[in-house]
């Protein structure tokens, strides 16, 4: 596909492992300049163009990155030629990278810009379908000069380094935003800049039942600017004890109570308030200005999943394996961090409670993955795909074979902890050496030590989902594991 023009702003997104390699290479402590090339997938969204760093080619000092003819240093023609070929073969945009001194401010030198003007038109001709550009990094700043096939040039607005501690680099620190008195108490923790970051965020919530409805309320009250909420279901009376903001009247109990004829109960269920509308009502009560996309649909459908591809973060609070598969793919393919939340009351065959826990599993692009950790079971995917009752599995009450106790407090533990994790990462409060863990809360465990378990997820470099030769940073080059809306 030819990239003729771009939606602005433009941002570069870098997965954690690649970011670590890049930084070690650019800033080894010698204070000198170093070079590299990034190959990035181009993803056009309504919120701008995202470049997803998929390949990193480190230029060897003295071999690939040598004293310049017109400036201080340069990438050799042979290195550039080979990288352009690599990018062409993989359908990637090409970015030449180098570093400057300094910390919070960075810009191209006159020599840098002159080299772009000399060299980039030829690179565009060679790459044919994708942009080329230059990136310059300081320790906490990045700038980019992107050349498009139509001859126009755009600046890179931001470089986002994903990981347990999300970092956003710009050419210079953003000006201090105006304070919003509504958020005075919480912005005392993370500042007006942190509050502005939240206002600029677009966050997806997949499933607004017991856990997701709480996540929805927390995010709306925190001042997150835009929510995309996905759920196919309508409120039932048995949801009301757990779904934040739901009323008994949302379930139309006068139509759905057991003594009513079957057709009336069916009509009542059909007319009951969709869960996404309850979520919208709650969000708007908290923040009338909030952007809210209420999508009454299944995340496993292509059009629904596509609505999440420009999110900054996704909360997965749905039960099905297929939802896990789709969201996990979104995380790695589009570099969108996410978290899976849930609670479990485990029963044995006799109906005795054997375990109770709440769980929070942060999913970081290329780092933590539900597939690697065997939390997506092919057999169950198949079962769900073959069974028209998939949605019933999330309703608990209709299916006599499914006994899934659910309690608001168990959901609240997971939801609050997950949103807190998102908050601390997004507003930049985490320590530099923060280590991400999955967390389980076991309220019934006798010893205090075992009530909160911190778990190190497995990681498999050859994983087809999160591995560098799998979905990682593939963007639109790979099809998400979704069903076609046309076939529904």
């Amino acid at each position, binding site marked *: 596909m030819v990239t003729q023009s771009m939606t602005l702003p433009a941002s570069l997104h870098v997965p954690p492992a690649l970011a670590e390699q890049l930084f070690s290479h650019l800033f080894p402590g010698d204070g000198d300049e170093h070079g590299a090339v990034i190959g990035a997938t181009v993803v056009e969204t309504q919120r701008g163009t995202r470049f997803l760093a998929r390949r990193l080619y480190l230029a060897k000092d003295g071999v690939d990155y040598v004293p310049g003819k017109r400036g201080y240093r340069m990438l050799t023609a042979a290195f550039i030629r080979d990288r352009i070929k690599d990018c062409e073969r993989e359908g990637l945009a090409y970015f030449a990278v180098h570093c400057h001194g300094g910390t919070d401010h960075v810009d191209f030198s006159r020599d840098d810009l002159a080299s772009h003007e000399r060299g980039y038109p030829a690179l565009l001709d060679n790459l044919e379908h994708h942009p080329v550009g230059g990136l310059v990094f300081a320790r906490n700043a990045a700038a980019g000069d992107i050349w498009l096939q139509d001859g126009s040039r755009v600046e890179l607005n931001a470089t986002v380094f994903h990981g347990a501690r999300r970092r956003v680099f710009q050419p210079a620190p953003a000006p201090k935003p105006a304070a919003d008195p509504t958020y005075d108490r919480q912005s005392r923790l993370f500042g007006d800049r942190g509050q502005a970051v939240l206002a600029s965020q677009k966050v997806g919530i997949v499933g607004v039942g017991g856990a997701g409805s709480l996540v929805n309320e927390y995010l709306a009250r925190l001042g997150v600017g835009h929510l995309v909420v996905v759920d196919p279901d309508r409120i039932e009376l048995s949801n009301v004890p757990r779904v934040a903001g739901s009323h008994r009247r949302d379930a139309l109990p006068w139509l759905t109570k057991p003594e009513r004829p079957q057709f009336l109960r069916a009509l009542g269920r059909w007319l009951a308030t969709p869960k996404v509308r309850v979520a919208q009502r709650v969000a708007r009560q908290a923040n009338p200005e909030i952007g809210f996309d209420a999508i009454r649909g299944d995340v496993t459908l292509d059009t629904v999943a596509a609505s999440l591809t420009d999110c900054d973060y996704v909360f997965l609070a749905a039960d099905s394996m297929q939802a896990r598969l789709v969201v996990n793919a979104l995380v790695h393919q589009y570099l969108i961090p996410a978290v899976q939340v849930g609670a479990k009351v*485990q029963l044995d065959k006799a109906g005795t409670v054997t375990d109770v826990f709440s769980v929070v599993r942060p999913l970081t692009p290329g780092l933590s993955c539900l597939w690697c950790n065997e939390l997506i079971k092919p057999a169950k995917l198949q079962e769900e795909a073959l069974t028209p009752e998939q949605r019933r599995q999330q309703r*608990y009450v209709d299916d006599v074979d499914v006994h899934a106790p659910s309690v608001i407090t168990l959901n609240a533990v997971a939801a609050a902890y997950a949103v807190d994790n998102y908050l601390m990462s997004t507003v930049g409060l985490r320590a530099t050496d923060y280590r991400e863990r999955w967390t389980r809360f076991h309220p019934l465990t006798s010893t205090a*030590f075992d009530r909160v378990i911190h*778990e190190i997820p497995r990681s498999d470099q050859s994983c087809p989902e999160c591995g560098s030769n799998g979905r990682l940073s593939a963007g639109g080059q790979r099809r998400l594991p979704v069903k076609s809306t046309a076939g529904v």
Partner: protein
Amino acid sequence: MSSTLEQQVEAHGRTVEIRVNKKPVEVKGPRVTGLEIKQAAIAQGVKIEVDFILSEELPSGETKVIGNGDVVTVTKHSKFTAIADDDNS
């Protein structure tokens, strides 16, 4: 000295008693897969299923997910937890 003897005995593929969800479980050690641990636990009455997610308890107090095909070296001090792989929201 005794631990050295134990290790020598275990190295010959002797039975090792580990803990799964705090219950004693005997496995053929010392090297055993995640799946074998779960299967042994189920066979010996621990209330889990093969689909459950197995984690090894580490000295740091954290746990580490063990995949079905992952091989771990177990001793009599090894402790594992196995929890359901699905949860509801």
